[in-house]
């Protein structure tokens, strides 16, 4: 079981499992009623093609389902992250 403090998450880099840099984490969406973590809010890297992702202005949403692990980087699954 890996527990992390959410303040440690801010400004962490988000990578896909094929080694591409996606961007920087800005915030996390949670459901207060169930405690479920829903989405990561990511500011995409200028070199990243955000086509096919859920966007809101310049922010990108990645479902927390896609998160593989969080250590020094946040690693997300490439296919699950496009839902």
């Amino acid at each position, binding site marked *: 079981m890996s527990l992390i*403090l959410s303040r440690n998450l801010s400004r962490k880099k988000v990578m896909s499992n094929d080694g591409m840099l996606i961007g920087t984490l800005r915030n996390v*969406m949670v459901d207060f*009623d169930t405690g479920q973590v829903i989405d990561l*809010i990511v500011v995409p890297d200028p070199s990243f093609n955000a086509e096919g992702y859920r966007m809101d202005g310049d922010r990108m949403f990645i479902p927390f*389902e896609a*998160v593989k692990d969080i250590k020094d980087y946040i690693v997300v699954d490439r296919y699950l992250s496009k839902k």
Partner: protein
Amino acid sequence: MITQITELFGLSVYTDKAAYVGDVEDVVIDVDAKKIDSLAIGNLNPDFVDIKGFKGIKVPFRIIKSIGDIIVIRHLSGSFAAQKEI
């Protein structure tokens, strides 16, 4: 209610017997379960939580009753000294 996690920081925590516990300093996320595990509470009310050598307590998410302008948790009589310290 779906909101950004940073909205929680700094909220005051009270029990359902209207006793002030402290303020939210951080949120502990369980990455595998994809859930909020607990809230880290600082700025504790010394009359209520009597622990020496610790700055805060962790309140498990399951004892939280509601979250709005403040956070209301279940009042566990006499058990707050036994809460898990950080």
